[in-house]
């Protein structure tokens, strides 16, 4: 792990809501081209942690060091979401949040926003630079649509796309920003086995073909165990375990967090415990 470049490193990130500590001193490292998952029971603080990284929440303590496209290290704490996106971190949402009344291509073109250079004045004058930028945007959007398997659906309104296609469009929109790090919040939620398998394959492709690092929240243990390089387990806002999928499956604290102390004590054989977690 240390031999690789680090894309994102959080140091003791803490977020409180009133008296509740949603995320408490979480350390985490995402290596370049890594697929890192964070799992945990409901309410463990996974999405809060995500929101801290993407700038929607400001952590109360800690640092989030991101190495941007030029390998310059930036502390993201204090940055607004739009600045963080511009540095090269894109995200998707647990419940799909596309611009429902825009077409697929328009959605992706909105995602390209950080890379657009022209101003409002040029938009009124329609300068050659702007025309070229628009043309390039459309070409790029079409290419991205093809990449996520939505070729030909560019002029469809996002709201009219089937569920699986909406998920993929959301990823395409995130990719339009040419991110270095992609945050996926439960990308297989609500999908059947077949679609889930396709999505898993697709996430691998994002790494192998685009070289993107991926940070994942996921509930489906088959997906998590199959895809992740490393897994971080949160419970009540605290990191209770970290390691490769094999290590996590054997970790008694993880089993306890998911099944409760009594159940964990009752499970003597590690393989049985691993099976339960894998369910």
């Amino acid at each position: 792990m240390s031999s690789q470049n680090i894309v994102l490193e959080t140091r003791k990130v803490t977020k409180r809501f009133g008296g509740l500590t949603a995320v408490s001193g979480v350390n985490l490292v995402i290596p370049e081209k890594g697929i890192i998952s964070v799992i945990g029971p409901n309410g463990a603080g996974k999405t809060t942690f995500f929101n801290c990284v993407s700038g929607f929440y400001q952590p109360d303590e800690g640092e989030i060091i991101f190495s941007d496209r030029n390998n310059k290290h930036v502390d993201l704490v204090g940055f607004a979401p739009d600045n963080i996106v511009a540095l090269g971190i894109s995200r998707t949402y647990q419940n799909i949040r596309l611009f429902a009344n825009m077409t697929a291509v328009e959605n992706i073109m909105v995602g390209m926003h950080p890379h657009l250079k022209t101003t409002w004045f040029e938009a009124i004058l329609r300068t050659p630079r702007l025309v070229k930028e628009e043309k390039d945007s459309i070409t790029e959007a079409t290419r991205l649509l093809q990449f996520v398997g939505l070729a030909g659906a560019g002029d469809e309104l996002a709201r009219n796309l089937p569920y699986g296609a909406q998920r993929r469009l959301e990823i395409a929109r995130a990719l339009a920003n040419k991110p270095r790090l992609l945050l996926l919040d439960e990308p297989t939620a609500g999908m059947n086995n077949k679609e889930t398998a396709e999505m898993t394959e697709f996430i691998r492709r994002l790494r192998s073909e685009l070289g993107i690092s991926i940070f994942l929240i996921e509930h489906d243990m088959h997906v998590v165990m199959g895809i992740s390089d490393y897994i971080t387990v949160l419970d009540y806002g605290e990191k209770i375990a970290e390691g490769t999928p094999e290590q996590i499956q054997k970790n008694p604290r993880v089993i306890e967090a998911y099944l409760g102390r009594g159940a964990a004590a009752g499970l003597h054989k590690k393989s049985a415990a691993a099976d339960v977690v894998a369910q």
Partner: protein
Amino acid sequence: MPNYIRNGLRSGFVFGIVIIFLILIGFTRVANELLAPLVKGTSQLPMGFILFMALLGLWAGASAAKRSPVLMGMPDTYQKWNAIISGLIAGIIGGAFVGLFIFVLGSIQTKGMDMRVYLAQLSPDAIKMLTLGRVAWAGAFSIWLIFVITGIAGGLLALFSDSFKLGERMSSSWKNMSAGIGDSAIAKTVNQNAVVRYILYGIFIIILLILPSFLGKYWNYTLGTIGIYIIMGLGINIIIGMAGLLNLGYVAFFAVGAYTVGLLTAPAPQGLHWNFWIGLLVAMVMAAFVGWLLGIPVLRLRGDYLAIVTLGFGEMIRVLVRSKALSSIFGGPQGVRDIAGPMIFGQRFTEREYLYLIVAVIIFTIFITIRLQNSHLGRAWGAMREDQTVAQAMGINIFRYKLLAFALGAAIGGLAGVMFASRNQYTGPEDHTLMVSVNVLALVIVGGMGSIPGIILGSFVLKGLPELLRQIEDYRLLVFGGLLVVMMIVKPEGLWPSKRRQLEMSDVDLPPETDALQVLEEQSSDQKLRGES
């Protein structure tokens, strides 16, 4: 209670109330004068009024019958005469309301009381018309009878039109026609071929250029006013329609434009005597600057709060320019006189030339609006309007884009203010009341938010109709309110909505327009993602 009786009661009730309302605002007199030429009678009766009542009765009956089950496709459970009963009940109830009201009015009248003290429209003449020139009970009864008869006739009409499938045929032929137009070669060329489209625009503009020469001073002035409101509508559309920021103080920008050009070009109170065109440019920049300045503190608020603060700001500007303390700067309550205008051959623009100028400004504004709409700015604003949080997560600097929308909208509002002040050669605090903001907002909502033709239509409806119906000018606010309420119920997306706005307002998922989706669904179930690229 059977459905058909309930429909009759409801229709009668609604029509009864509405007609009483129309009587109270004096609209029945207007209708009488408008319809009188259609029915040339020798009798003493107010035939226009009777015809108006008959038409309303017909409508009440028909609308009651149309809802009855027999016409809704359940002929087994109900008889056809149910439709007629519905119409009859609507007539009886509606007529009873109106008749009773007229009877009360007529009785009071005979007692010698002058109703005008309470309601300006209820002059003795008006009441005489309502009672058809007879004693109260006889007039009221006649009106009631008219409603009963026309109610039945309305029911019959609905039945008749249904058995011939009139409505259905009409709507289907309309659909075919509009589909035909949409699919026809001409429409496609117009839609796809920019040159043809520009030629059509050209023809339209030529008509616009010729028209003012045939109109008198009054109509040129009126059309100019409508035009100024179109400019303002287009300006506020950038703020509300594109960026989705509710602004109730748009008049502030209008006032800044008007006052800037006024103070720069008028002999008093500043005595600067600048050239009009320079004043125009400075006024636009000034309005944009004020919009930007106002935006900085205000745009961190969302929704209702933003609306309230802008509302206050609109009033603030008016109070400022009105204040005695600042009258050496702004001219106080008297306003600014002798504002310069553009010159032609050493002469000031006349009403007609101002109309040309305003039309040119409208075209310029439309041009800018379209360019903005179809650029990344339009997309960014659209994204912001739909989901501000996600838009920000797309790298859009929400605050900057809101400010930009505010400033651009304000500049156009300022431009409208320049036109207004320069044409009137005067501007004062009373030109910039809250009503201007309300009017502009209303015309955008009535016309269809985000839609350029909608704004033009809305402007003609809200500023043009009152000119046509001068008699009801006192009740314009009432009509405004009524119109807005009706619009919100019947056509919440506006008279001529933009396609996108229509989508946003409707929750129904529209059927996909192409087969691409089916292909997609098959792909996603048959193919692995890897195979597709």
